[in-house]
């Protein structure tokens, strides 16, 4: 094996590891943020008492670290229960099928521009596939299996109902999501997410950042609604609605498997936030920042390229964090839909709007003659 190949493999491995670990970390962190946010909205103090008994001491703290540690430790040490009459194999596979597609989606999401390090160009995107965003759609559509199988294999009526609701809901909202993405593909003329990010550089009229949201506001709204519905969170959490179905499709899961479903939820939140950032808010683009520094009209503040790269990654992180926060706020603000309302919104609200948006976009592109 020659050394360039080895270096390339090493770079890809490091990128993949960094992205996966980052997603897992964020998911854990969001678990804490969600509790704090719920406390904030319900005007109480919130998660501050988690304590880890260690060496006879109780590290009772108010801090973030204790909660972050206590949560997974508790999950990991719980007994793993498989109910009688359940399909043991499928019951065990289901959480893996839920978490795996969610994690691998991050492979195509760019978190920075191409960086030159020691004369080597590194694209801050794990996989450059020529199907780009279709890969995201494919993985999102595979995410249904965890829900459906989890619901079916538990041998529990509430689980089954949750699974059926989940599959119907996810298929329905996938269409609307797909149509929003179609409009974005037409706008940028590419399916590669990195190219989409690059196309959002520069400004409109000299002061508005050239972001997708200013071209496709409707697509953004459709995408966010469908995205929250895909991640099955309030107001779309019919598959697990605790007041009707106990815990929906993962009622019969405990311990690590429950943790996996739990993590999937938050990883999907991060995915929706990242996609919203990349498609509609410029991804790693910082307004007025170009490859060689800030450009304000004629004045230029030159910056070294490594600083520009770090600023880009920071920009992507801050924006996606904002959208995670937005989703958590939505979750604690809105009540749950009724099932018929959910279906009506999906099929009679978002879907026709998505079609309309795609058709208008196509017509405008045709009239302008180019992108």
């Amino acid at each position, binding site marked *: 094996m020659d050394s360039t190949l080895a270096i390339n493999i090493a770079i890809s491995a490091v990128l993949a590891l960094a992205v996966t670990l980052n997603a897992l970390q964020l998911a854990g962190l969001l678990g804490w943020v969600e509790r704090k946010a719920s406390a904030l909205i319900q005007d109480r103090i919130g998660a501050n008492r988690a304590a880890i008994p260690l060496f006879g001491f109780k590290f009772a703290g108010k801090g973030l670290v204790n909660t972050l540690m206590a949560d997974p430790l508790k999950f990991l040490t719980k007994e793993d229960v498989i109910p009688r009459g359940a*399909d043991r194999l*499928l019951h065990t596979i289901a959480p893996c099928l839920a978490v795996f597609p969610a994690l691998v989606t991050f492979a195509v999401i760019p978190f920075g521009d191409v960086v030159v390090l020691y004369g080597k160009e590194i694209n801050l995107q794990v996989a450059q*596939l*020529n*199907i780009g965003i*279709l*890969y995201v*759609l*494919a993985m*999102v*559509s*595979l995410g*249904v*299996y965890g829900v*459906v*199988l989890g*619901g*079916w294999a538990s041998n529990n009526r509430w689980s*089954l109902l949750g*699974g*059926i609701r989940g*599959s*119907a809901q*996810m*298929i329905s909202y*996938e269409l609307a999501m797909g149509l929003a993405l179609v409009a974005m593909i037409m706008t940028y003329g590419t*399916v590669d997410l990195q190219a989409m990010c690059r196309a959002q550089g520069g400004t409109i009229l000299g002061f508005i950042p050239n972001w997708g949201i200013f071209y496709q506001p409707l697509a953004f709204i459709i995408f966010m609604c469908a995205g929250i519905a895909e991640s099955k969170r309030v107001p779309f959490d019919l598959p697990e609605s605790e007041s009707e179905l106990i815990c929906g499709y993962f009622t019969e899961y405990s311990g690590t498997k429950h943790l996996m479903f739990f993590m999937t939820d938050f990883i999907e939140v991060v995915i929706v936030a990242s996609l919203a950032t990349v498609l509609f808010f410029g991804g790693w683009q910082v307004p007025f920042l170009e490859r060689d520094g800030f450009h304000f009209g004629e004045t230029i503040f030159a910056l070294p390229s490594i600083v520009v790269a770090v600023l880009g990654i920071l920009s992507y992180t801050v924006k996606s964090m904002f959208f995670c926060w937005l989703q958590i706020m939505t979750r604690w603000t809105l009540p749950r839909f009724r099932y018929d309302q959910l279906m009506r919104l999906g099929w009679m609200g978002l879907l026709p709007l998505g079609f309309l948006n795609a058709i208008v976009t196509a017509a405008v592109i045709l009239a302008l003659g180019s992108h």
Partner: protein
Amino acid sequence: MSLPLFLPLAALLLLSALGVVLNTHPVRSAMCLVATLFLLAVFFIFLDAEFVAALQIIVYAGAIMVVFLFVIMLLNLEKDEVGRTRTGWHMTTMVSAGLFAIGLLYIVYRAGTLLPGAGMGVAAPAAFGSLEMVALRLFTVYLLPFEITGLLMLAAVVGAVVLAKKKVA
């Protein structure tokens, strides 16, 4: 695609396909079919058909199979009852299907070197199988069939709704 990669993948594909036929529970059959479709998508990628592979997962694994599972759960189908199998019929089927497969395999074996085209050894043209390339062909040469497919889908949607709708007595 090299042989050490092809053989295990092909074995897995055939195993999961057999799983569809041999499993007595419809949900397990369906999951085996999902695995088969996923593995086929892997083969498509090795055959330079990335777009088709993505479609395979989005349409087949992600939509059609979920509808299958949905219906199985909706009807709450249980395991097939055993004891109603007809051994004679099974043997006849196996033998004839086996003969059919052997005959076709023989033809494939004989015709292997006679196929027109450059073959697997030669690299595919640039951007072969990309979204742009398939779309360009689809919307120029195959435009009429494409429109007809749209009509077919409409008819299918209307038909499905009419058939599955509960009769209001």
